């Protein structure tokens, strides 16, 4: 069955983005059109969600057209339980990004909105591609708008940051490309299903796994290839940081789940210790690094790396769970946790960056020391910031808790020490986030800039309010999300526990 719903989700924002760009100097029109397009795109997710059957692992809403017969590459798109939540997240996050820029972006406005819309379409394309070449096409194309967003609307060191961002990601990606081509030459087929099904020797799997890992570890990012992220986050405009943290980082996790593990499951089993070690370093070491940051955005960036460590940890725990308990039952818990953590981190980190953006618009500083006692002047904003910070440190009742809890639980099943180290995040996360809140939000009014701050306006309230509701909702009632993923996670667990040898 062919449906065009997904194609619409991909191409509406892209084509719409070019229309917005064409509006040029008509700023107001560009704003409203961009908002309209992003809202319509989000609305298109409703039938997608309503019509989705989470009990099966099959790809739904498929569309399959010939694209490049010479390579046997097809324009084939579809969603399963792993892609769907991320697509909805993408469409959902873009709306607040566009609203948040309403008054704070004054330079090349139409192009700003156009870049975000085009990127939205490309990101949805990444998540819905069922053909590896199509995936790579969207994956790389997405670098261009982000490169421009950081470079044009970024801070003082934006050029350094954006070039670093581009080159890091590009370097990781080309190894993935070589791996894809290598496999294509054996299967003569670029469809992801064919790559997942192809037999590979352990030697081949290891190299392929490492090639994918190079691409995805940079994107996640994992220690020690994370250094581009703090730079990019600090220099990017608020919207850029939000999209980067909320969605782009998820692509690394998504890639691990879609490519690296199912295609090279035996290599995953061999190398899981390596991945777990890097993930735990990210959780513990980067947690300490976050603690000493002076810059709010940098602090949140490091906290993102630590939180994404849970995603990569959860993704590879299945092997150890089976090793420790001897049965595949419950092996999917780590994967569940990884997925929930991705969605939740998308919402929370997005919200945190938006909060910083709200303060930055008023004081024009990201330094923690430039603030103090903000709650005295901005009580509503203070409440939001505290809520998101609690979520960031994993308070039960917020979405941040669910993902981390699932992963820690899965880690316990695998190995006590994994869990013990992972659980330090509950202390470290609370430490760096709450200390940030203490220094910025509470206390006496720090200086005259803070004294002049006005509380959030209706627009900012709307943006933060919607995110706050979803963070709490996902925290107290994660069942819809877990149901959506059930079939796919089960299938994925089987795939990565099966052997190709």
């Amino acid at each position: 069955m062919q449906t065009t719903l997904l194609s619409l989700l991909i191409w509406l924002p892209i084509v719409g983005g070019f229309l917005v760009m064409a509006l040029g100097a008509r700023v107001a029109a560009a704003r409203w059109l961009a908002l309209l397009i992003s809202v319509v795109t989000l609305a298109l997710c409703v039938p997608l969600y309503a019509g989705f059957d989470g009990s099966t692992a099959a790809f739904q809403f498929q569309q399959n057209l010939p694209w490049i017969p010479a390579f046997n590459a097809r324009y084939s798109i579809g969603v399963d339980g792993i892609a769907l939540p991320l697509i909805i997240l993408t469409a959902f996050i873009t709306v607040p990004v566009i609203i948040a820029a309403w008054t704070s972006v004054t330079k090349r406005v139409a192009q700003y909105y156009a870049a975000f819309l085009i990127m939205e379409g490309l990101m949805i394309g990444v998540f819905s591609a069922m053909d590896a070449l199509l995936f790579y096409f969207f994956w790389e194309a997405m670098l261009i708008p982000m490169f421009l967003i950081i470079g044009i609307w970024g801070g003082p060191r934006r050029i350094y940051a954006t070039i670093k961002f581009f080159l890091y990601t590009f370097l990781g990606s080309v190894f993935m490309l070589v791996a894809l081509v290598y496999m294509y030459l054996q299967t003569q087929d670029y469809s992801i299903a064919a790559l997942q099904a192809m037999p590979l020797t352990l030697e081949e799997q290891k190299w392929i796994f490492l090639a994918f890992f190079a691409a995805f570890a940079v994107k996640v990012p994992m220690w020690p290839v994370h250094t581009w992220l703090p730079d990019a986050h600090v220099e990017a405009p608020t919207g850029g940081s939000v999209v980067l943290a909320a969605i782009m980082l998820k692509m690394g996790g998504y890639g691990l789940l879609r490519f690296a593990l199912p295609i090279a499951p035996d290599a995953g089993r061999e190398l899981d210790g390596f991945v777990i070690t890097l993930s735990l370093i990210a959780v513990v070491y980067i947690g300490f690094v976050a603690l000493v940051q002076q810059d709010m955005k940098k602090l949140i960036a490091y906290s993102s790396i630590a939180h994404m460590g849970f995603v990569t940890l959860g993704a590879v725990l299945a092997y150890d769970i089976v090793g420790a308990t001897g049965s595949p039952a419950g092996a999917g818990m780590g994967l569940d946790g990884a997925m929930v953590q991705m969605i939740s981190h998308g919402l929370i980190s997005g919200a945190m960056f938006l909060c910083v953006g709200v303060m930055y618009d008023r004081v024009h500083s990201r330094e923690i020391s430039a603030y103090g006692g903000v709650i005295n002047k901005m009580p509503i904003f203070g409440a939001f910031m505290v809520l998101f910070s609690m979520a960031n440190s994993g308070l039960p009742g917020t979405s941040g808790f669910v993902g981390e809890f699932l992963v820690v639980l899965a880690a316990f099943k695998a190995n006590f020490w994994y869990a013990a180290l992972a659980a330090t995040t509950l202390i470290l996360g609370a430490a760096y986030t709450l200390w940030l809140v203490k220094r910025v939000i509470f206390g006496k009014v720090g200086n005259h800039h803070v004294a002049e701050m006005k509380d959030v306006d209706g627009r900012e309230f709307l943006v933060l309010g919607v995110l706050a509701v979803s963070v709490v909702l996902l925290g107290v009632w994660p069942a819809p999300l877990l149901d959506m993923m059930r079939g796919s996670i089960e299938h994925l667990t089987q795939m990565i526990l099966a052997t190709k040898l």
Partner: protein
Amino acid sequence: MTFTTNEIWLALPEIYLTTALCVVLLFDLFFATKNPGRTATLTLLVLVVGAVLASRQVIADRQVILGGMYVADRLSSLLKTGAFLFTAMALFYSRDYLARRGIQKGEYYVLSLTALLGVLVLASAANMVTLYVGVELLSLSLYALVAFDRDSGVAAEAAMKYFVLGAIASGTLLYGMSILYGMTGTLDLGALTARLGDSPGLGFTLAIAFIVSAIAFKFGAVPFHMWVPDVYQGAPTASAMMVATVPKLASFAMAFRFLAEGLMAQTPQWSQMLAILATVSVIAGNLIAIAQTSLLRMLAYSAIANVGFILFGFVAGSGAGFSSALYYTIAYVLMTLAAFAIVLISSRDGCEATELDHFKGLHQRDPLLAGAMAAVMFSTAGVPPFVGFWAKLQIIQALLASGHLTLALIAVVASVVGAFYYLRVVWLMYFEAPAEQPPLGKAPGMRLVLAINALAVLALGIMPEQLLALCRQVIPGG
């Protein structure tokens, strides 16, 4: 020697071009003395008609005609169509530039046409003599084009350098050919393999070394690349564009006819040499390009790096490899034409926009030019959704398919290094504030063609199938 009508029909592009060339020469002499623009218009007309003519040739099978001197196949038809078309674009882009510099003379167009004739002859060479005639026809015309601005010292210097080095390269080519002739007693490219036998020995290695060097020189591969940056920078930019674009098709044809067709059985010998040249080219080209402050010199080193990629296609030594090299060449010429067109449009009287700094803030001064340039830069860097991505992907596929994993890895890592300097152009155009500079010219016609050119770079990137399939069909085993 007798001719059949069929043979005349097959060789029609060359016959037509030679005739047209004489017509243009005479026309210029009698009807365009006051207004050289007329010659330009006529030349463009000639080229467009030629492109139609070459593309209309339906050649089902490979046919060797004119006493074994000339081959007509689908590849030659495609190369000729491309050569006509790209020459037309190059001359169209150069028109205003030449007029402003006061070097818009009929001879410029005539020399461009003779250069084109050399490309056509090379595309159909079936004999070493034909090949050599093509090479010399092309090269001599290009030397003259580089020196066309006779009052310019740097142009004269560049032309001199190009000529001396080029003459040495032609000498090596002849030397290699003569050794081959001595060993086999034939100049026929089709008969070489059979007469060389299984173990041709040291003499053959020597001959191959000479021939590969000559081909590498014409391509501009390291270590025979010295002339490239100097010609790009020293020559009038319009001439540099002629040197940088259409002759790449000729170099491809030369390498394909000589190595891939003539010496197919000896692939291991020449592909090893090419592998070294290609590797050194992608590494050196990309690294040295980073250090450039002149856009033209940067493009020159970028050309050297891209030539390395084209040679990688030959290294693969398979039909797939040759067709990917062909695709790469066509894509590269298309992108380079757009890049040079932007330089030409940006150049004013007394201000050649050849330095990277001239492009600072171009986006605010001229969004169309900046957009087209950004598309070309991302494309050359190999980022989808542009045509350059498929070119690089195909080369990597061909390398992996022939078991050259290390070379493929070198190629992709070098292209990441290369991405830096392409990104720097985008950064200058989009992230920097414009320096004080006069407004850019209108040139509506040129802008239209440039827009189409840039859109083609994008469209061929989104829908690459047509050109991919074409490049595979014209090469046996592609």
